[in-house]
C-alpha cells in the first residue's frame, strides 16, 4: 500500500466545469462570478491535446483564480497510452493555468492511438488487473508531471467485471496512494444498473480518500423498454445523485473541491444549485475542521 499524498492539496471549494468553447454557448465563469459573487471558487477545465486551452480558462487563470485540469484523452486503464508527448503537453497546459491537480475519468477515451472522433468513454473493466493497470498509469503521470492525479469513476450504460465500482476505485487508490474523485451522478448510474440503492457500498468505501466530488444532472431515458440514465449535465441532478452527495459530504474528511458540472446551461438555471452545494460544502468543511481540531481529538 502506498502512503497518500493528497493531504497537501489546497482546499478549493465549489467550482464549475468548463470545456473548450463552453463559455461561448453556456456559462462564462468570470461573468457568472461577477453576477453571483462567491458561488464559484474555481474552474475545472476539461480538454485534450488536440483542443488545448481556450480563452475562457486563460482569462480566469490570468485573474489569479484557481483551476484544476480534467484530461479527456488518456486511457488510464491502458498504461501504454500514457506516452511522453501526452505527459509533456498535458503538464504544460495544466501549469499554464496553475491547475492544483489533474483529474479525469479512468477508463477508455479512445481506442488505438490517441485520435479525434472516437465517440466513446468506456468505464474500466471492473477487475483487479484493470485496477492495478490504472494505478500504474496514475503513478507514471504523477512521477512525470509532479502533479497529483485524481481518478474519476466514469459513466456507463453497462459495466463489465465483477467488482463494485467503489471497490475498484478503493483498490486503485490503495495501490497508487492517490486521492479520488467521486462523481455522484456516475455512481448513481452504476447503482441503478446493478439494481442497488444509490448509497450502497459507501460504508465500506474509503471516503477519507475522496478529494473531489462531481455533481451533475442526468436524463432518464428509455431505450426500447430499458431504463438508462444519460450523463447530460443538465441543471437538475437526479434524486439518487443528491442522496449520494448528502451521504458523502459529511464523511469525506479530505474533501478539497466540489464541481457542479453544468457549463453548457443558462446561468439562471444553475444558481440555485450552486447556492445549495456551496452551503453543503461549507457545512461539511466546518464539521470536518471541528472534528480534526485538538479539542475534538481529545474528546
Amino acid at each position, binding site marked *: 500500500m502506498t502512503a497518500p499524498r493528497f493531504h497537501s492539496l489546497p482546499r478549493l471549494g465549489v467550482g464549475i466545469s468548463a470545456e473548450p468553447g463552453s463559455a461561448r454557448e453556456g456559462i462564462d465563469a468570470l461573468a457568472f462570478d461577477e453576477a453571483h459573487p462567491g458561488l464559484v471558487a474555481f474552474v475545472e477545465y476539461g480538454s485534450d491535446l488536440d483542443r488545448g486551452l481556450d480563452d475562457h480558462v486563460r482569462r480566469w487563470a490570468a485573474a489569479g483564480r484557481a483551476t484544476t485540469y480534467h484530461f479527456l484523452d488518456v486511457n488510464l486503464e491502458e498504461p501504454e497510452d500514457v506516452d511522453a508527448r501526452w505527459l509533456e503537453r498535458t503538464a504544460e497546459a495544466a501549469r499554464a493555468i496553475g491547475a492544483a491537480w489533474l483529474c479525469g475519468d479512468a477508463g477508455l477515451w479512445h481506442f488505438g492511438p490517441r485520435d479525434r*472522433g472516437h465517440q466513446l468513454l*468506456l468505464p474500466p*473493466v471492473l477487475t483487479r488487473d484493470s485496477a492495478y493497470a490504472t494505478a500504474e498509469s496514475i503513478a507514471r503521470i504523477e512521477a512525470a508531471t509532479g502533479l497529483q492525479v485524481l481518478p474519476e469513476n466514469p459513466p456507463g450504460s453497462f459495466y463489465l467485471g465483477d467488482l463494485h465500482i467503489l471497490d475498484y476505485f478503493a483498490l486503485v487508490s490503495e495501490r497508487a496512494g492517490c486521492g479520488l474523485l467521486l462523481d455522484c451522478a456516475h455512481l448513481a448510474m452504476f447503482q441503478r444498473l446493478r439494481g442497488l440503492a444509490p448509497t450502497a457500498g459507501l460504508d465500506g468505501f474509503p471516503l477519507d480518500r475522496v478529494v473531489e466530488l462531481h455533481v451533475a444532472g442526468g436524463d432518464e431515458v428509455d431505450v426500447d423498454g430499458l431504463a438508462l440514465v444519460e450523463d447530460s449535465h443538465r441543471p437538475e441532478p437526479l434524486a439518487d445523485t443528491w442522496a449520494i452527495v448528502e451521504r458523502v459530504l459529511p464523511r469525506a474528511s479530505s474533501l478539497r473541491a466540489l464541481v457542479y458540472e453544468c457549463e453548457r446551461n443558462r446561468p439562471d438555471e444553475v444558481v440555485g444549485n450552486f447556492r445549495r452545494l456551496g452551503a453543503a460544502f461549507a457545512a461539511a468543511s466546518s464539521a470536518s475542521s471541528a472534528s480534526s481540531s485538538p479539542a475534538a481529538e481529545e474528546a
Partner: protein
Amino acid sequence: MSLAAQRAVVRMLFDPAFAAAVRRAPDEVLPGVEPALRAQLAALDDRALRLDRLRRLRALRTLSEEFKGAATLALAERRSLAFLEEFFCSAAFHQSIEERGSMALAFAEFLAGACAEGRLTTPLLADVLAIEAAVARARREPESPSRPPALDDPRARLRCAAGVFPVEVAEGALAALQQAERYLFEVGLMPAVALCDDAPRLTVDAAAGGRLHLVTVPHGGQVSLVTVDAALHVVLRCLPAPRALAAVLDEARARGLERERALAIVRELAADEIVVAAD
C-alpha cells in the same frame, strides 16, 4: 486481459452484427477474452449498446473531415449513408481495433478496398483518396529526432524524415479534391439546403491528365503537399523503409534514373532534411 474485453466492447458498440455474433457464439468469436468477461459480453443487453444512436454518424463526421474529397465522392456515387456505415462492419475497422491501429487509416483502407473491388468507380476517387490517405498518415507519424546522413559512404543507411510520403496520382486529382471541397463549403453554409431541388450540386469534371508527383511534408504540426518532379519522386519511392545508400541508388537506376543524378537528388533531399540518417 481487460483490454481484450474493452476491444470487444468497442467492436460491439459500432457493429451490431458483431454484437449479435458475440451473443450467438462467444467462445468462437472472442477466444482471446477470459471466460468470465466473455460470458458478460455475450449477456450485454443490446439496448444498452444502443444508448448513443448517433455514435456512428459522429465518428463518420470526424473521418469525413479528414477524407473530405473521398467521402464526398463516395457518397455522391453510392447515394447511401449505409455504404459509409459499412466501414464499421469491415475487416479494416475490426483489425484496427484489435491491433491498436488508427481508425482514420482503417477508413482509408476500407475506401481503397471498395475502389479496388469495383464498388466505387468514380473517376479520380482513388487518386483523391491516395492524397488524403498520405496526408492522414503523415499527420500521425510520431516526430523523431534526425541527423544528416553520411552520403560519402555507400553503406550509410537512410530513411525519409518522419511524415514524408511520396504520392503519385492523376493530374486531375487535386482539381477533383478542390471541387469536392467547394461543394462542401457551399452546402455547409446552410445544411438544410441539401433538401432543395435547386441545391448546389457536386460537379467533378476534372480530366485525369498526366501524372502528378506529390510529397507530404510535415512542419509545425501541419502537413503540406509539395509538388515535385518525377526524378525526385523516384528517389523517395526507393526509400519505403530505412536502407543503405547503395541500395537506394541501385533501385533508382532500375527505375531509370542515372546513378549520379540520383545521388545529386539524395544530397538535395538531405540538405532539405527530407532524407535523414537511419539509426
